[in-house]
């Protein structure tokens, strides 16, 4: 009997403790940022904390992968509490198509002119500003795979069966992976001295090879972090990887070799956009301007987080080698998002049909 009373008392105390903090009202303004849940500790130190102090604002994060966050943004529409979003180009494009973004005002972005031309307005309709660039190429366990990996088509090789992992079709690099495999298969068909033509966005050859590729897979990945984990746990030996994951991949301590395949790497810009639902337009612009400023771009690059798009940033050789910068910016393949997006719905369905088996 006495113990019951004691529990009741305990519960009462717990309740008070739990409810009390909720009653404390919050005065400071907030800016809700939708972003990947990757490297948040570094971003906090480099970007968020100083920005919060400068503008007397609390940054609230909504984290998740591109599609997760886009889905929520679309579902919430006008009611969304999100003010700015970080998306890969493809998802900025989709979001813009659905009308949940508002165009930025170039006059409010002092640092915009410092960016490479292609980063200032990647979609050509002011839907967002490119703030970092990354690329997709291949990485493999050079200690466990004997024959050198040189081509996107090596993902289909028998000796890597059961150890391959590729990005989901629904992710930024899903379509890119398939298109590059198609390009590799096309290259194999070429006669001596013949040149590879334009990108074939239908990727028929790759689709034909997909069931064979599926047999090689451990699984597909949606987040680069998942790939890192799988590599770390020795589940995966060969995979296409996004350049921003290189630091984490190398940290696994395994014998990994990153290669730019013969067919080339795929370049991709990440963008920041302002949502249509926000009423904090000025603060949102300030946030973007801060992110593309020389100091932030440099700090992020030196921490191997984001490859800079601010042309005024100059990086040491060794850092540049690990990022998407320098010469690579000129050689990488950039896909036409309109072409990719037009096929995406159909591709997702076909992809699932192959992958589900």
């Amino acid at each position, binding site marked *: 009997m006495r113990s019951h009373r004691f529990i009741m008392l305990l519960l009462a105390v717990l309740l008070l403790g739990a409810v009390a903090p909720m009653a404390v009202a919050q005065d400071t303004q907030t800016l809700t940022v939708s972003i990947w849940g990757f490297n948040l500790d570094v971003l906090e130190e480099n970007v968020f904390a100083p920005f919060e102090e400068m503008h007397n604002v609390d940054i609230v994060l909504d984290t998740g992968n591109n*599609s*997760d966050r*886009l889905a929520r943004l679309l579902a919430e529409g006008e009611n969304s509490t999100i003010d700015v979003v970080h998306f890969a180009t493809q998802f900025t494009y989709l979001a813009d198509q659905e009308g949940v973004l508002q165009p930025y005002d170039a006059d409010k972005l002092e640092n915009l002119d410092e960016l490479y031309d292609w980063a200032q307005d990647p979609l050509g309709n002011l839907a967002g500003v490119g703030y970092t660039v990354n690329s997709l190429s291949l990485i493999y366990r050079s200690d466990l795979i004997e024959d050198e990996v040189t081509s996107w088509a090596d993902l289909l090789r028998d000796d890597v069966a059961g150890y391959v992992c590729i990005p989901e079709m629904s992710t930024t690099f899903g379509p890119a992976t398939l298109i590059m495999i198609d390009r590799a298969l096309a290259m194999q068909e070429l006669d001596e001295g013949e040149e590879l033509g334009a990108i074939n966005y239908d990727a028929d050859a790759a689709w034909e090879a997909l069931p064979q590729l599926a047999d090689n897979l*451990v*699984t597909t*990945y*949606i987040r680069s972090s998942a790939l890192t984990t799988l590599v770390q746990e*020795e*589940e995966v030996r060969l995979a296409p990887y996004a350049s921003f994951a290189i630091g984490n991949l190398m940290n696994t301590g395994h014998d990994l070799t990153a290669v730019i395949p013969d067919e080339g790497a795929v370049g991709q810009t990440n963008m920041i956009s302002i949502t249509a639902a926000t009423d904090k337009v000025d603060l949102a612009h300030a946030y973007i301007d801060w992110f593309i400023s020389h100091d932030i771009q440099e700090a992020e690059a030196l921490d191997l987080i984001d490859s800079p798009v601010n042309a005024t940033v100059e990086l040491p050789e060794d850092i540049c080698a690990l990022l998407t910068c320098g010469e690579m910016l000129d050689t990488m393949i950039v896909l036409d998002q309109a072409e990719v997006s037009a096929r995406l719905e159909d591709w997702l369905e076909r992809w699932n049909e192959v992958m589900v088996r």
Partner: protein
Amino acid sequence: MIRRPNQTRTIILLVAPAFVVVLVFFVLPLIFLLSQSVTPKEGGYTLTGYVDFFQSPVSRIVYLRTLKLGLIVTGICVLMSYPAAFVLARMPARRRTFLMSLVILPLMTNAVARTFAWLIILGRRGMVNQTLLSLEVVEEPVRFIFTETAIVLGLTQLFLPLMVLPLVSAMENIPDDVLEAARSLGANRLTTFLRIVVPMSSDGLVLGATLVFTGSVTAFVTPAILGGARLLLMSTLLRQEAVIVFDQHAAAVVAVVMILTTLAVNLLLRLLRVRQV
């Protein structure tokens, strides 16, 4: 129950507040979900969502796979629980209380933590593979993660208590006399178990099977972690349709199929229980 006339007003006062909350925030969303499943993006009312669901190879495979794994998990749970539940039910009360609280423990722990353990156990460098390698049963580590085996193992551990608990409480109600009567009439232990204990505890079995099966076919965390992005079950398909493909119409169809499946299983097994009584 005390019979009292003129109580309607009291009952309404007692039930109404919570009833309204459940109605508005639970029943209404489900009705809205149902309507979503018959109103595609293009507008109008149609059942094509359901037709598509059962015609598309993707969802059909996922649906059948989900049911298959649910059956396997239920079967394993029955086999593992039956003899053990019998031992538990025949134990002295104090020891049983302690052991039963250990059975409850997994139920009370969050599914993420529990499923996480299987990643460590089943990984290429995990416990199972290390053992197999050192026993030289295999040369290369075997892939378990992202396989149906992994999901089955994870789900079994998750839902085993839901089979053990009803079985034990059903078997507790079998008097010792009945078992002794069977033995005295010439039945051996196995016969007694199969012909007396099993039929007399069938209520618990049916209840347990309902809980385990419906739990397995609707669980999310385990297939999400152990099945990965590729090996989809209904729950992970729902999540994929909802947040990755953002096709709310298709997601609603998946959701409704999940509800109907659960309800059908519940009804079916409830009928089974009634018939036995």
